[in-house]
């Protein structure tokens, strides 16, 4: 992210007019580990640093280390919740947010974070994940059942068209809930969710996909028979790499097992960790199914009166 001198200046002004030097340093420490203002400035420890100088220095370091968004998120949080029992009013904060949003990001109130914005700018890492870092995700995996039978039964072009339709549906459903499609390979794909109630979002996306597939089969599918899918949601840590094939993750391996071994066609299966996060309203839709003697999984499927 290329930050203009003007934006850096705004940040410095905002801090200088709103925070004490002690609070500025504390906040800087949230995004730059072990941040020491005296060491950075060259001022001897016994000499107090003027507020304006401290603000300019921290703004420079935050921008230089690519932490502007995270630091601004911290400022927003401080204004909302106060700091060390004190309420804080940050000056120029709306202006600061506007400036960052003009660089192609959107501040999501519900997550307290900036993520990439705009229709055409969706990347796998939401524009904020660090390559190689590990995060806690919730994943939704979809597989089109009986892929090879479909290819034998119908002309290949028609089958591919139907698969492309399902991919579009899944992408729209996942992205509407701030998820991202991490991988698509012919007859299935994986959506990742990171922010907010990620397990709820992934479970809802899976449910919606089953309902949309039902409507698709009913009114749009050009194949003579219906398409069927298997879906699974699992949560856990995973390294973020832009190239999906390089990722080695137990969470993704477990997800694949859940989908391949335990999800019946036209059903969504949840791991216990996901289910426990759903809340009473959403839990109601899932029934427990015994996967093994030790494990219970949770299943949703659509039926009719």
């Amino acid at each position, binding site marked *: 992210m290329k930050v203009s001198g003007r934006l850096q200046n705004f940040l410095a002004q905002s801090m200088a007019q709103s925070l004490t030097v002690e609070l500025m340093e504390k906040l800087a420490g949230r995004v730059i580990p072990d941040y020491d203002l005296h060491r950075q400035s060259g001022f001897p420890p016994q000499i107090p640093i003027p507020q304006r100088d401290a603000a300019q220095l921290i703004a420079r370091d935050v921008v230089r280390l690519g932490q502007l968004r995270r630091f601004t998120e911290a400022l927003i949080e401080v204004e909302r919740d106060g700091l060390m029992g004190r309420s804080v009013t940050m000056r120029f904060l709306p202006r600061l947010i506007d400036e960052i949003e003009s660089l192609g990001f959107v501040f999501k109130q519900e997550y307290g974070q900036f993520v990439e914005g705009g229709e055409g700018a969706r990347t796998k890492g939401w524009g904020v994940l660090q390559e190689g870092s590990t995060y806690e995700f919730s994943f939704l995996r979809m597989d089109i059942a009986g892929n090879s039978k479909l290819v034998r039964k119908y002309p290949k072009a*028609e089958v591919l*068209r139907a698969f492309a339709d399902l991919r579009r549906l899944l992408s729209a459903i996942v992205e509407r809930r701030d998820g991202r499609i991490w991988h698509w390979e012919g007859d299935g794909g994986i959506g990742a969710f990171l922010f907010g109630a990620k397990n709820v979002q992934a479970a*809802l996306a899976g*449910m*919606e996909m089953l*309902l949309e597939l*039902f*409507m698709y089969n*009913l*009114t*749009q599918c*050009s194949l*003579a028979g219906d398409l069927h899918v298997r879906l699974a949601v699992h949560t856990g840590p995973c390294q973020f790499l832009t190239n999906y094939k390089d990722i080695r993750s137990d969470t993704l391996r477990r997800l694949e097992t859940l989908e391949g071994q335990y999800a019946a066609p036209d059903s969504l299966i949840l791991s216990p960790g996901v289910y426990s996060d759903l809340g009473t*309203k*959403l839990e*109601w*839709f*899932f*029934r427990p199914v015994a996967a093994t003697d030790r494990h219970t999984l949770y299943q*949703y*499927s*659509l*039926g*009719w*009166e």
Partner: protein
Amino acid sequence: MEVLLFSDNPKLRLAFKVRGAFRLRSLGWKDFQREIAVPSVPALCYLDLATHPPWRLASVLRLIRARPQLSYGLVDRRGQQRDVARLFQEGAADYVDREALLAGVTAKRLLRVVSFLRTRRSEVPVGLPGGVGGRLLPSGTDWSEVTPEREYTFCLLFIELDGREEMEKKYGVKNLGIALASFRAFLESAVKPAHGRLWIWTGFGGIVLFPFSGADCPALGCLFRLVLFRHLYDVEESQFPNFLSYRLAMMIGNLTYTQANVGSVVSDSLNSVFHLGQEFAKPGQFCLTDEVLRFGHPALKEYFLEAGHFEGRRILRMRMPRHRRD
């Protein structure tokens, strides 16, 4: 109007002397599924039986009939079809035999076909309540041609939340007001894809008007989704703490569209849809008259069951989706 000719005989297009409002596209059978998958405009399809295997005709016709924007005619230069009347009974709009082909499929003939289609479709709403003698007065496919203070045929939807008294007792005025406002916003966005307009709001529901062209009823698909996806709204957006239940009733009828003093509108159709929703439909049900179903997407029909008769009309109700199977 677009005329799609499906044939593997390139010379056949010479028999179509199309001009004026009609635009001919000659296509091979290999293009058939792609072309009709998502028809963007109403089209009349001519199917050349001589270049298509007869045993696959039924599936071709099924695909066409599933798309309300499409009509079809059959080109039968070899006289393969014995029972031509049956073709029309099953939905064909034209039949072009060898003689007709020699005479040419002209714009004049196509105008007759369109006129025939209009007559066949407009037969159904005869007997609509509230209209001047139940006439069909199409309001179009959207609101662009609707003028206030004029009478039109609309598709009318009644919607009302169940359990009003309990909600009033349980939630408190402020909370209830917030929850109802969010439900209203949800309803307005849910009916938008079919150009539905919330016309009357009664606090716990209201009347939505959908323009009705006389050719099809996309509103039915919209309402089907409203029932099928109801619980996603419940979980994601609803401000009510419990699961919502609402009754839906739908019919086609005439009324004078007005923007001001909507409460003073006197209309038999309006009364009927209110009665159907409040007196006939049970909590959680979606009831409709058989005209609505006839104009809706054909694939939706199997999800409706006979529910009896009300005020002289045949009523059907939607089968309820079951989201939890124990």
